[in-house]
């Protein structure tokens, strides 16, 4: 078979077999939707919210201070609505920071912790709970119902978006995967999980609004840092540093795509 014929044959075979999967998929997807509906209320993440709220007020570190004076972007101590506008640029750190990096900054500046101490257990394990996961759950819940509105006025915020978009489409690694491999078309699934098309604002809104989330497969609240790290792992990329620029920029890209969405975190995920 010559090459052109091979391409044509391949295309024809592709067309001939695209139908059944979609048709058969509908009832399975309905079942999954019904399952999710049964779990929609009574999110175990509420247990993390309780812990996170207490942790915000708890004094610790060499300065024996709480986080209550932490500036999450709307002024020192303002929690209500702050998460809906993160990540954003902070003049004191000179960086665009997501919630987690901002909390780390506050732990260092206000409580006098070292970076290592502040970032300890940032992703919880079986034996070690994560203060940051609990704080994230509570702080996110304080933005429920508010519109996603990441600022894009500072040049570094614009740059984070632009670089984030490049990174989103950056194919590399042994599998040739980019974020866009799974997240740039609508209505497809991996196994039974419907994949959000993050280039489509309506879908980006729903997804961005629902992180951090309680993951039933892991029995804990996971943050967006964790979700992106895990996506990169499944893309067969190296392990990203906690708070790395790649993660921040991808978060900004998704968050700006999701502008106007209604915050509903913490969510409940597989």
């Amino acid at each position: 078979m010559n090459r052109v014929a091979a391409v044509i044959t391949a295309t024809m075979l592709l067309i001939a077999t695209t139908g059944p999967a979609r048709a058969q998929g509908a009832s399975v997807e309905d079942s999954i939707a019904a399952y999710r509906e049964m779990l929609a209320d009574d999110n175990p993440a509420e247990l993390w919210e309780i812990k996170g709220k207490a942790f915000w007020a708890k004094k610790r570190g060499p300065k024996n201070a709480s986080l209550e004076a932490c500036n999450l972007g709307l002024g020192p101590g303002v929690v209500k609505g702050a998460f809906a506008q993160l990540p954003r640029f902070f003049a004191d750190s000179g960086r665009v920071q997501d919630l987690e990096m901002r909390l780390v900054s506050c732990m260092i500046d206000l409580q006098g912790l070292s970076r290592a101490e502040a970032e300890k257990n940032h992703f919880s394990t079986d034996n070690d709970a994560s203060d940051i996961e609990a704080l994230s759950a509570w702080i996110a819940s304080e933005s429920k119902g508010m519109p996603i509105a990441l600022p894009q006025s500072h040049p570094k915020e614009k740059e984070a978006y632009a670089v984030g978009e490049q990174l989103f489409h950056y194919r590399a690694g042994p599998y040739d995967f980019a974020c866009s491999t799974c997240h740039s078309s609508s209505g497809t699934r991996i196994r039974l999980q419907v994949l959000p098309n993050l280039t489509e604002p309506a879908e980006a809104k729903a997804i961005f609004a629902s992180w951090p989330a309680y993951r039933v497969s892991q029995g804990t609240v996971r943050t967006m840092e964790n979700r992106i790290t895990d996506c990169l792992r499944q893309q067969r990329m190296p392990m990203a540093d906690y708070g790395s620029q790649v993660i921040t920029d991808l978060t900004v890209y998704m968050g700006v795509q999701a502008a106007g969405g209604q915050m509903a975190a913490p969510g409940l995920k597989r």
Partner: protein
Amino acid sequence: MADPMKIRAAMTDDVIEVKVLMSHPMETGQRKGADGAVVPAHFIQQVTATCNGKTVMSAQWGASVSKNPFLSFKFKGAAKGDKVIVTWVDTKADTRSDEGVIA
């Protein structure tokens, strides 16, 4: 010490619906941890709920109840403002008791 529960109790007509989330690993004793060793069983065995000194729910659980368990039940015979007290005890004899006010 175990983390607090989240207890919600809401009255509609004369029926009180109680919803409880508990913080617990509910280890089955079948799972292997990151180090490859079997994680010992550790789960809530007994749950009781009382209201005004009366038991309104008592349950025995095995290891197959989900991690960070959820439980919902309904009872009659109490008023708004009354307290529902939920207590659990697990296989390590750890226990936790919290209360929710009927709204």
